[in-house]
């Protein structure tokens, strides 16, 4: 029998992978995908709680998260295009004109 703990652990692992990815990776697209992974880990958490609390609220929240993630992806990819036109690369370390 798979319990809520299993799902929550899986979500936590996915969230951790996403967090580590954003911090360690240097490619802008990979970093962005890691953020998406974190959001999906959140979705999984919501659905697990929703299922085990026997309640619909969590699933409704997931719809909002997905919609917003789509809007964010649209803006984010556009910003990546603009940024890569300036730097000529997808390496985030090239975005370094401002330093104190």
């Amino acid at each position: 029998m798979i319990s809520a703990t299993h799902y929550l652990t899986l979500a936590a692992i996915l969230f951790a992978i996403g967090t580590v990815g954003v911090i360690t990776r240097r490619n802008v697209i990979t970093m962005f995908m890691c953020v998406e992974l974190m959001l999906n880990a959140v979705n999984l958490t919501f659905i697990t709680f929703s299922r085990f609390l026997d309640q619909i609220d969590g699933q409704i929240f997931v719809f909002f998260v997905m919609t917003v993630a789509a809007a964010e992806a649209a803006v984010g990819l556009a910003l990546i295009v603009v940024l890569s036109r300036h730097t000529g690369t997808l390496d985030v370390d090239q975005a370094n004109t401002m330093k104190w």
Partner: protein
Amino acid sequence: MDINYTAVLPEIILSLVGISIMLLTPFVPRERQTHLGYLALAGIVLAFFGVAMGWGQTDLAFFEMIFQDDFGQFCKIFFLFVSTVILLISMNYLEQEKLFQGEFFALLLFATVGMLFMATSADLIMTFVGLEVLSISTYVLAGFKERERKSSEAAWKYFLLGAFSTAFLLYGIAFVYGATGSTKYLQIAEAIQASPDYSLILLVGVGLMLVGFGFKVALAPFHAWTPDVYEGAPIPIMALLAVASKGAALLALARILYQVLPDLSQQWQAILWPSAVLTMAIGNIAALTQSNIKRMLAYSSIAHAGYLLVGLTAHNSLGTQGILFYLVAYALMTLGALTVVQIVGRREEQHTTIEDYNGLGYRYPFLGIALSVFLISLAGIPATAGFMGKLFVFSAAVQSQMYGLVVIALVTSAIGIYYYLRVIVSMYMGEFKKEEIPITISMPMRIILTLMVLGTLYLGILPGILLNLAEEAASF
């Protein structure tokens, strides 16, 4: 339990005007698109009437998604005021930079809608959606000068860290939902009250939510993005981020902490206390070494978030009043200072180092006096709004017996006086260099600056009226 449209009338008006600006933009000749700003201004004025129509009512609207209370109304008026000022500054800015794009105004209105929703939301879903409406609009606005590398870099950094922090906030919300079985503020509060042995899931959830909000308010140790993003963003958008976006996240956080989690106050005070100390220390100390005025004001805005956090941590009614008062004062002086920075910056923001201010005070007495008043107020010297704001916020902390925090706050704000005065000193003592392009101050800018100077001084000498309003608003 009905929809009650008057509670969301301002938001509806702003959204409709924003959408119509989007639709009109392709049909308006390019060089006349700045005129769409007047349409946006009309929308904001209408929204003011919308707020006035709902004044004094207390209710839960939109299927328990929206609070209609004095706190919310106060916040709405505050955000509409800030948007009006930013709209006027940006019309001037777009004209000067020859950025003829009407969608700027639409995005500004959508960002405003997000702020209004955040300040009045009664449900974590609404808070999240409001936050994202605000954030996604500001991601685009920060990168609005897409031909400039700095602006694009700023937008990208802001986007990535914003999305990253949203994930933490959402994860926190998910845990709070799992622990309490609801996303509605009042029901979560009831559930927490009913079971005083707080589960680990709930505490982790609250912690993650604080991380998420910490990013948005730019609290240390989550402040690192602020100077870069503020420096790269267009000046009016820097003002939007520093005042409105920060304020919206802080007010939403205040509502969550006071209305949803009052029973956990010991726990969240233990987290916010060190964060406030760090925020004030890092903001004030890092600002000392800056040579770019935008970056200096970015660090100063971090420091001011720290002072606001002192009021938030105090968790008493004086603290809430103090936050509301301080936010208005902070908005006046920061918007004013940034307006001057924009005028002095001229085309393409070429003159934004502190050296560019050398001798400005004698050459342009009006700008010199205005900037001096704003900086003195930011430093918190008596007879200005900034001093009164600090007084209320710190005395709230004293009332809650947080003497250590108040002492640190006073010491750090004393450090802060140095870098504000440095600019004033260079304005009056520095040697004026011959300039290639003279500074021009248009009439609307002159009027805005005069009003802000008067407002800053008025609140510093007679704070009573605003304080009474804040007192009414502070009773949740």
